[in-house]
């Protein structure tokens, strides 16, 4: 259904680029040649025009990310999501009006959607975007006229790409120029100097395996490329390899540098017992560098930003949830809830919505000079998935019936576990909940999702001794609590909010009001 635009080789032999800014967002409609983002390479800032017409499904790379050439940048779905038209992979088995029109085979994307007509929305958008700059450029009275694309006539700036860069491919042997008798041609055999320890004279192979920006980085660290092991594709030396080596070198006494192991299988030459001799935790190298990507990277950025800018405060409370658990048993037998997840999470979600009505300042976003109170609940539900932590959002959760909310939670968590959560589904949360009880844990201090002032934590429901009417009885007990933005929410408000949630969990009948 969707078409992916990979980062082109921006210019002549560049290998990576940083996403400076996105000009589109998921859900936007784009036409061929619309500028979708600005990227920065070692050479220049470049505006990238999209080669497809359709609807933006996903921005695969985030602003600030440096990605390699050939990595996916953006996914574009067809405007009519139901029609597989235009998808190169499907071109063969659709009835394909588009492919027939253009004679496109599997290798040829887009043409079906490319036409004069497809180009005009983009030009119209360009015109609307900067009416002044166009009229300013010509003398009065005259229409800016024959230019159809004002945005484009001011020339896209920067370097040029190839979609799939030829990566340096691994070779089994060298090829010499002595395949035929050339003695009569007077060709001198080329003596290739071996790489020296100081990197002063790099062999062509080493040069080939590291891009110019990486070589420059190595030079800044005072590293020779010959002391680097490449972990990139086909042994390519990456920026990370250089940084890791620089870090290692900084920690290692000078006299050991030469003998320093570059991987777990190497044994240092010194007299100390080596870890290899002592054995390792498991089969594998002693240390392994893992590239931070995708959800891990997004999570890292989000929590680091949140933890460093938002003063978190946490409160906790133990609650007797027995009544809710009894209600749960009843609902599970109700055919209206068949197939739906009826869990403590559902009751907690209902309780949060109830408690937010009474504690409005909890459902807010801090914006330095002001804060925005939200008269609706976009409830984020943190889910541990194989891809990592994702927080899909139930929008306008206050409008749902209990059954509707159960259905929404079920669908959302299923999607999340199957990795189908779209970025759009993760936008716009006002309050979140994280159910660490499913991990067998009782309490913890979550980090607030960006822009939210409260995240509620729900622990495991356990049968514990509890004092009821002076008697010790077994009851279903859970710890609830969470983290709050202290700029907006003081301890008393956090306490009132959590206490209100506790009240509902203890007496779910109050929801009948």
């Amino acid at each position: 259904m969707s078409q992916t635009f990979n980062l082109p080789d921006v210019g002549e032999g560049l290998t990576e680029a940083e996403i400076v800014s996105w000009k589109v967002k998921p859900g936007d409609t784009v036409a061929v040649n619309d500028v979708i983002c600005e990227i920065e390479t070692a050479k220049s800032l470049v505006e990238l025009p999209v080669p497809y017409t359709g609807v933006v499904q996903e921005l695969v790379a985030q602003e600030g990310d440096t990605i390699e050439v050939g990595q996916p940048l953006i996914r574009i779905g067809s405007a009519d999501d139901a029609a597989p038209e235009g998808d190169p992979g499907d071109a063969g088995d659709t009835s394909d009006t588009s492919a027939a029109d253009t004679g496109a085979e599997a290798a040829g994307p887009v043409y079906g959607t490319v036409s004069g007509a497809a180009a005009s929305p983009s030009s119209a958008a360009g015109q609307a975007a900067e009416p002044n700059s166009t009229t300013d450029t010509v003398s009065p009275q005259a229409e800016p006229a024959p230019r159809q694309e004002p945005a484009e006539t001011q020339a896209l700036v920067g370097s040029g790409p190839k979609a799939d860069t030829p990566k340096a491919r691994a070779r089994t042997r060298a090829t010499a120029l002595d395949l035929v008798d050339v003695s009569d041609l007077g060709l001198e055999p080329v003596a290739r100097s071996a790489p020296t320890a100081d990197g002063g004279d790099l062999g062509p192979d080493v040069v080939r395996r590291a891009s110019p920006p990486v070589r420059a980085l190595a030079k800044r660290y005072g590293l020779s490329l010959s002391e680097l092991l490449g972990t990139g594709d086909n042994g390519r030396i990456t920026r990370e390899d250089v940084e890791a080596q620089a870090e290692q070198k900084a920690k290692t006494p000078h006299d050991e540098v030469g003998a320093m192991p570059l991987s777990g299988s190497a044994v240092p030459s010194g007299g100390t017992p080596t870890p290899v001799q002592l054995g390792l935790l498991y089969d594998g190298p002693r240390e392994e560098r893992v590239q931070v990507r995708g959800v891990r990277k997004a999570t890292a950025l989000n929590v680091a930003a949140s933890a460093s800018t938002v003063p978190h405060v946490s409160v906790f409370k133990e609650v007797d949830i027995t009544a809710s658990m009894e209600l749960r048993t009843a609902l599970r037998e109700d055919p209206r809830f068949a197939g739906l997840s009826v869990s403590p999470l559902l009751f907690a979600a209902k309780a949060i919505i109830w408690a937010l009505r009474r504690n409005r300042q909890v459902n807010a976003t801090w914006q330095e000079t002001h804060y925005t109170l939200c008269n609706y609940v976009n409830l984020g539900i943190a889910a541990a998935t194989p891809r990592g932590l994702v927080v899909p959002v139930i929008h306008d959760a206050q409008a749902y019936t209990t059954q509707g909310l159960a259905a929404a939670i079920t669908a959302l968590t299923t999607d999340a576990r199957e990795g189908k959560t779209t970025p759009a589904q993760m936008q716009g949360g006002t309050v979140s909940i994280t159910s660490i009880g499913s991990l067998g844990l009782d309490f913890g201090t979550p980090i607030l999702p960006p822009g939210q002032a409260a995240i509620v934590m729900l622990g495991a429901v356990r049968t514990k001794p509890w004092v009821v009417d002076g008697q010790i009885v077994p009851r279903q007990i859970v710890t609830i609590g969470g983290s709050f933005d202290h700029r907006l929410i003081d301890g008393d408000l956090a306490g009132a909010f959590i206490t209100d949630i506790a009240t509902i969990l203890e007496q779910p009948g109050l929801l009948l009001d």
Partner: protein
Amino acid sequence: MSAAQSEVQLASSVPVQLLGVDGALVGHPVFSRYVADLSDEVLLGLYRHMVVERRFDVEATSLQRQGELALWVPASGQEAAQVGTIAALESTDRVFPTYREHAMALYRGISAEQLMATFRAAKHTGWDPGKFNFNWYSIVLASQALHAAGWAMGIKQDVSTGALGEGRTADEVVLACLGDGATSQGDVHESMVFASSYQLPVLYFIQNNHWAISVPLKTQSRAPLAHRAAGYGFEGIRVDGNDVLASYAVAKHMAAQIRAGSGPKLVEAVTYRMGAHTTADDPTKYRTDEEVESWKRRDPVARYRKWLEAEGILDQQFVDQVDAEAAQLAADLRTAVHEMEPVDLERVFDTVYAEPHRQVQVEKAWLKDYEAGFAEDQGVEF
């Protein structure tokens, strides 16, 4: 002959202009007459070619950004200089372009697809230079100035021996295109010396777009480039390269003299490239926004359109028609680029010489061996 040399005057540093930046006609004692009697059809044709080229340029730039071309050389801003000059020549006049003469190539009937085949590396050259009297693009700049002089020498000899080739005319003008950057190269010097020595029918057409990649004109030349012609003993002239009428008139004027046996001439079209030198550089790093803005106000297409409309020659219907034609050309170009097949490298070796050649054989063998040496093709895993 020495007397004639001493009579060569330095070109005026004020470029010839027939159409002001405001779109009003400016009278000129010599050049006005060349455009006075042009038919509406010809005048509209100039407009059409400029607009189509500009749209073509935008599409090619986008295709390059989308990874479909390794490189593109934008010509936006130089439409008037190119279209005015090529329109003033005969279709039998041979053109030796740089790699930026897209408007000229399209004018001569080379299709967008043929033009793009070279940039897509699908063809060594996408068109038959003989068919269009338009040589292949020269990537090694300034070499085309030597080719032009050589071609002109051949014409001159053919005329003198009465062995003129089929389709060639005795009064052919050879157009040597170059940019301001190429004027600093030795090849251009040699070409001009040669053309002058043999009084060859060459019109040197410099598009001075002010930037040799990132080197500004003022670094390259302290005097107008047109002055250089006098040093070789022939006439040079400056023209407003953003004025399509002046570009036409000056080229027509110079070509007529060359046909009459004047020997070489030089036109310096003062213009500006609005985009990058090629898509591989970032012009914002070497020139100011103010400078670019000042040239936007001198836009060749807007100026000409304004005049055409004021004269009642151009109506909205024609504007729409041209825009539609340009959009169609852009769409066709996109389709064509996607469908191009890569060039067969073996064929590249086989067509260097007509007969087998040892060194080419060696290099071909090397390539074959190299291509056979990739691990992945032999199932070797790393």
